[in-house]
């Protein structure tokens, strides 16, 4: 179902009066529902619903050889699947550009914020380390898959347990009580521009009407720090507007941050 131009016109018209099609305020998120451990076979997993948008993220751990350029670190591999079960817009096959961009945003948020202490996941320098394979599946796309995916990824990593090892081999299905070595979690949040307004957490109709988006990953230490920032969409942006939006994102992201406990 492609959204009709008439719907886009309606969305723009309402926004001119500061209103949204589902009566939310501009920066208001839909309800966020978190469910942990959705697959007991996974080392960690989480389901996140934001309104009708739903994603499941899960981790699997393997013993691997560290990369040559980081011999004293574990490995993180993030993959995102925009599966056709989640939307008529998605197709089967290898990840397309949207899936790749989504995975790389989540990867960047985790990596650049040092959320996982990868150095602690090295067992023998240059020889053996833990590899974390984090896969994100879209279940239902009603807009804002980016924020939902990044959120689910952080929660799945938080409840991940390291498998037992025997004679240098992983005992699959037997988890220890040891959790991953983690630091301050990153929050990833996106602003969408429609006509002259910026909104957060769009539903799919709003997302399709948008011409510019700013995604930022933030940690809230003593002072907020930005770890990933991407401008996407066909429209360019003025510097002043960019910083105005970044300030809003940092403020609103803090509210989501409080949901991670």
């Amino acid at each position, binding site marked *: 179902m492609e959204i009709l131009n008439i719907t886009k016109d309606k969305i723009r018209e309402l926004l001119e009066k500061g209103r949204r099609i589902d009566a939310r305020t501009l920066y208001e998120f839909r309800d966020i529902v978190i469910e942990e451990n959705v697959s007991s076979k996974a080392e960690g997993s989480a389901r996140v619903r934001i309104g009708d948008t739903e994603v499941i993220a899960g981790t699997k751990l393997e013993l691997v050889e560290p990369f*040559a*350029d980081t011999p004293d670190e574990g490995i993180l591999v993030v993959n995102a699947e925009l599966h056709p079960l989640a939307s008529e817009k998605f197709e089967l096959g290898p*990840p397309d*550009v949207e899936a*790749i*961009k989504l*995975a*790389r945003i989540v990867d*960047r948020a985790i990596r*650049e*914020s*040092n959320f996982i202490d990868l*150095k602690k996941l090295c067992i023998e320098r240059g020889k053996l380390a833990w590899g974390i394979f984090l896969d994100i599946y879209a279940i239902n796309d009603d807009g804002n898959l980016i924020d939902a995916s990044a959120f689910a990824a952080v929660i799945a990593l938080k409840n991940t347990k390291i498998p037992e090892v025997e004679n240098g081999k992983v005992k699959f299905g037997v988890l220890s009580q040891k959790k991953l070595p983690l630091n301050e979690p990153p929050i990833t949040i996106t602003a969408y521009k429609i006509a002259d307004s910026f909104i957060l957490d769009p539903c799919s109709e709003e997302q399709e009407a948008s011409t510019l988006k*700013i995604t930022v990953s933030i940690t809230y230490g003593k*002072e*907020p*720090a*930005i*770890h*990933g*920032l*991407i*401008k*996407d*969409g*066909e*429209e*360019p*942006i*003025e*510097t002043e507007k*960019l*910083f105005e939006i*970044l*300030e809003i994102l*940092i403020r609103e992201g803090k509210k989501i941050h409080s949901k991670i406990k």
Partner: protein
Amino acid sequence: MSDKKEKRPDGREFDETRKIEAKVGVIKRADGSAYFAFGNSKAIAAVYGPRQLYPQHLQNPKKAILRCFYDMFSFSVAERKKPGPSRRSIEISDEIKRALYPVVLLENFPNTVIDVYVEIIEADASTRCAAINAASMALASAGVLMSELVTAVSVGKVGNAIVVDLSQEEEQYKIKKDGKEIKATTDIALAFLPRSKKISLLHLDGSIKLSELREAIELGKKICTKIEAIQRQVLKKLE
């Protein structure tokens, strides 16, 4: 690089780019082409089009379709890069398209496609910025109607210093903290439209405060204006 008075590893000032080399008409077969280098980060770009787009159902009767393809030569990096698109190159191709999209007057060429191909001959960080500068000049040299040129440069924070045009050495700069080596670089790719004064690409990796980000972007904008002058000078020779 903790002290502001210090110079950079290669002796540059904080607001100094590496040697810029720019040329157009470097691929005769193409409708437009350009070469752009920041030191050892060398990009070559070719534009084919506007040309008929097949299969026909992909055509847009209202405007041209812009397609961008970025990749690196296998021997452009220390460890051989497997030829063919990677996740990174697919993401960068999309970013180059986003950077160029606002300036190309696509409505003038309905039903056609404009293909932009950029290859990296040698990589020493900031390759996507070199690629955007080359692509922008290649489009102009192909006679594609544009509202202005697109200019790009990397800016960032190395240690505590805000610098422009990071080299690979700077991109991998690490500091010792609690006996461990940690990455101490923030790298920002910025594409700026010097006439309309807008940002068409922003991609940040690292860790930076809002005030530092502002400082970095202001520096990048200043340098982009200088790069635009170089691009224009080179394009003028073409006429």
